[in-house]
């Protein structure tokens, strides 16, 4: 990260003026930044703080050394013993110290850090991409954030099948050209695509909005059945089913396993995903696949929304931790925050990033702080970040690879996803590649094992002690010679915490998905919860974001 400005000695903390806002936002992750921008666009006065010297919180893209220190240690200055300026006894509010919550564990680094460290920009929330036609893209256009970020197309979508990588036939042309599919298989897949296309609005590329629209050709009953069952009924062969479930509908859990039945996607969801995928292919002339990746990494997205917020008047202060919430003694309502500088700031609403929590001892007796406990935890994601000497597939730049359940070994219950990026998205020096991997998990050990198994399948891993016993990869099937060498890697486990809704909002962590749909959904809910009267980025606001007086020139 090239954020190198003034050092943050406590004495350096600036005094913030004014001291009262409609909304205070702590942390600059994507959900927090979206909320700040949406509130500012709705005319609210916003103070946006981050204790880090950089933008993005858990959604940032950072230089080496990676992971940054804040993964290892809690975010707050560890000196609650010196609460700056205790409130006078006559004060009408009490200060409740915030408790930092550690969201990352099992951090393990291997290999020597490549140089120059500044040439790398590594996503904390990877692997992640945007569908060309998803709502995040629309929101960027609507808010004006799209002015600040450029994208590159993901070139290919690959699936690990029987020990080798095959490309995912995801369009008519791709199905037609695919040499690994038989004629009958091609016909079945075309049939399904046609079915899906009936669910896409008449030519305008929009996903069918209502269930009725989506139901053309598929019975309502079928829509509620598991998608995996539906595909079986369509008599699709196993490989095609797997491709559709895990590489196109992006299922994260084994769809043929009764144990993960909570995670089974319904036919309705499956068809919607297929429709979104379908309308994403070809939405932008320069995007060759359904997915795009932001140049310089995902950390650009929060920065773009923060800039939108700033343009609408939000106030920005980095390197400013908060130490306590101010709670009204009478009503027990949230009143404001105490900054590390000792300054008290008041606001109607507060949005916090997920690594800050109110101590449960306090929150139990305190209605305001409900929902800020560990109950937000819904699972874990094991994530790997790799730097490699070459591409996974010869000549490739930016590609997605999916390891469906059971593809790495028979006990594998979740999908492992990998995203390879090249220097053409500005995240590494030419010649090297960055590969992100992730899988959702309930058991952190198992999760990291899956990630390592996928790393072993993709790369030549110099020290075999990295590959932990028990997992055999299909080395002999993959042509070992073409695999790139793993130069450096970092594996860690991240808690998946949900958004929580109350007078104090807590934002979600990066989730286990490849895209932002779920995060955007809960962010919108947080916004509506705070401002039921306001629209989340109204459609008409686009025009004012750029002033163009240049007349006709292009």
């Amino acid at each position: 990260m090239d954020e190198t400005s003034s050092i943050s000695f406590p004495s350096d903390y600036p005094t913030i003026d004014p001291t009262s806002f409609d909304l205070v936002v702590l942390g600059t992750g994507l959900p927090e930044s979206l909320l700040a921008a949406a509130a500012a666009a709705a005319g609210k006065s916003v103070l946006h703080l981050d204790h880090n010297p950089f933008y993005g919180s858990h959604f940032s893209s950072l230089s080496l050394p990676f992971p940054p220190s804040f993964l290892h240690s809690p975010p707050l200055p560890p000196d609650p013993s010196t609460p700056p300026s205790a409130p006078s006894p006559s004060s009408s509010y009490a200060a409740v110290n915030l408790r930092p919550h550690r969201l990352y564990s099992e951090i393990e680094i291997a290999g020597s850090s490549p140089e120059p460290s500044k040439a790398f920009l590594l996503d904390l929330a990877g692997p992640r991409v945007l569908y060309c036609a998803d709502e995040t893209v629309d929101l960027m256009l609507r808010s004006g954030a799209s002015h600040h970020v450029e994208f590159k197309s993901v070139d290919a979508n690959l699936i690990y099948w029987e020990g080798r990588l095959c490309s995912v036939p995801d369009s008519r042309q791709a199905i037609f050209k695919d040499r690994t599919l038989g004629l009958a298989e091609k016909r079945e897949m075309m049939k399904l695509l046609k079915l899906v296309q009936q669910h896409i609005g008449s030519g305008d590329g929009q996903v069918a909005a209502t269930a009725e629209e989506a139901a053309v050709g598929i019975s309502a009953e079928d829509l509620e059945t598991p998608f995996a069952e539906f595909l079986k009924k369509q008599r699709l062969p196993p490989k095609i089913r797997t491709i559709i479930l895990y590489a196109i509908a992006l299922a994260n859990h084994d769809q043929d396993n009764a144990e993960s039945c909570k995670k089974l996607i319904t036919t309705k969801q499956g068809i919607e995903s297929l429709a979104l995928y379908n309308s994403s292919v070809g939405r932008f002339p320069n995007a060759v696949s359904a997915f795009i990746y932001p140049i310089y990494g995902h950390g650009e997205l929060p920065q773009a929304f923060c800039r939108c917020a700033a343009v609408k008047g939000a106030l920005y202060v980095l390197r400013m931790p908060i130490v306590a919430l101010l709670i009204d003694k009478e009503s027990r309502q949230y009143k404001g925050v105490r900054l590390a500088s000792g300054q008290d700031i008041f606001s109607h609403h507060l949005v916090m990033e997920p690594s800050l929590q109110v101590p449960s001892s306090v929150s139990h007796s305190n209605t305001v702080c409900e929902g800020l406990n560990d109950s937000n935890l819904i699972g874990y994601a094991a994530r790997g970040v790799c730097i490699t000497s070459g591409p996974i597939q010869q000549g490739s730049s930016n590609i997605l690879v999916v390891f469906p359940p059971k593809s790495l070994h028979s006990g594998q219950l979740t999908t492992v996803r990998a995203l390879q990026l090249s220097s053409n998205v500005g995240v590494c020096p030419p010649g090297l590649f960055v590969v992100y991997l992730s899988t959702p998990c309930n058991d952190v050990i198992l999760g990291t094992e899956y990630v390592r198994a996928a790393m072993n399948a993709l790369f030549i891993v110099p020290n075999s002690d990295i590959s932990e016993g028990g997992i055999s990869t299909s080395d002999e099937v993959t042509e070992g010679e073409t695999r790139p060498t793993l130069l450096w890697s970092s594996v860690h486990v991240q808690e998946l915490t949900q958004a929580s809704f109350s007078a104090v909002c807590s934002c979600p962590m990066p989730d286990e998905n490849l895209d932002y749909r779920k995060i955007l959904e809960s962010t919108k809910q947080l916004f509506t919860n705070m401002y039921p009267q306001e629209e989340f980025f109204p459609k008409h606001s686009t025009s004012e974001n750029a002033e163009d007086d240049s007349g006709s020139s292009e």
Partner: protein
Amino acid sequence: MATFGNNNLSAKLVLLGDMGAGKSSLVLRFVKGQFLEFQESTIGAAFFSQTLAVSDATVKFEIWDTAGQERYHSLAPMYYRGAAAAIIVYDITSTDSFERAKKWVQELQKQGNPNMVTALAGNKCDLEDKRKVTTEEARAYAEENGLFFMETSAKTAINVNDLFYEIARRLPRAQPAQQPAGMVLADRPVDRSRASACCS
């Protein structure tokens, strides 16, 4: 608008400098020919664009203002990215703002784009009687640091256009492709024809 063959440049220009030095006023004067005595801290636009014709080329500036994020030293790296030019603004009636301008120069040098055209603008030069920073001092500093220097007044329009023309003149004509170029999202569905994203 006339074009000169292929000599059409597009350049991102960023403004830096202390709050109140007159960054937004300079832009408004240049782009709209306006001056407001009490300009608000933020101007409500992500960027302005303005095209200038210089002798051998047409330069389309995309001018980025800080949107107030400089106030607590919280500019995002995104702000500097891909900038071909920068104007560092100080107020000639404030030595503090000149000292802060030097900090911005250092900050910019850290961003490490050696081809960036950097200008130092001593603004509010209409306020001669309140002057605290001498022209000589500022010029000497600019020369030492490879900046070009002008004193401007957004209020009276002195040197404002000249400043931008001079930047346009100095921009390297063949811009090195050191920045990875990507596609810009554009709000036009495919079926409404026209290429919606630029080069890749």
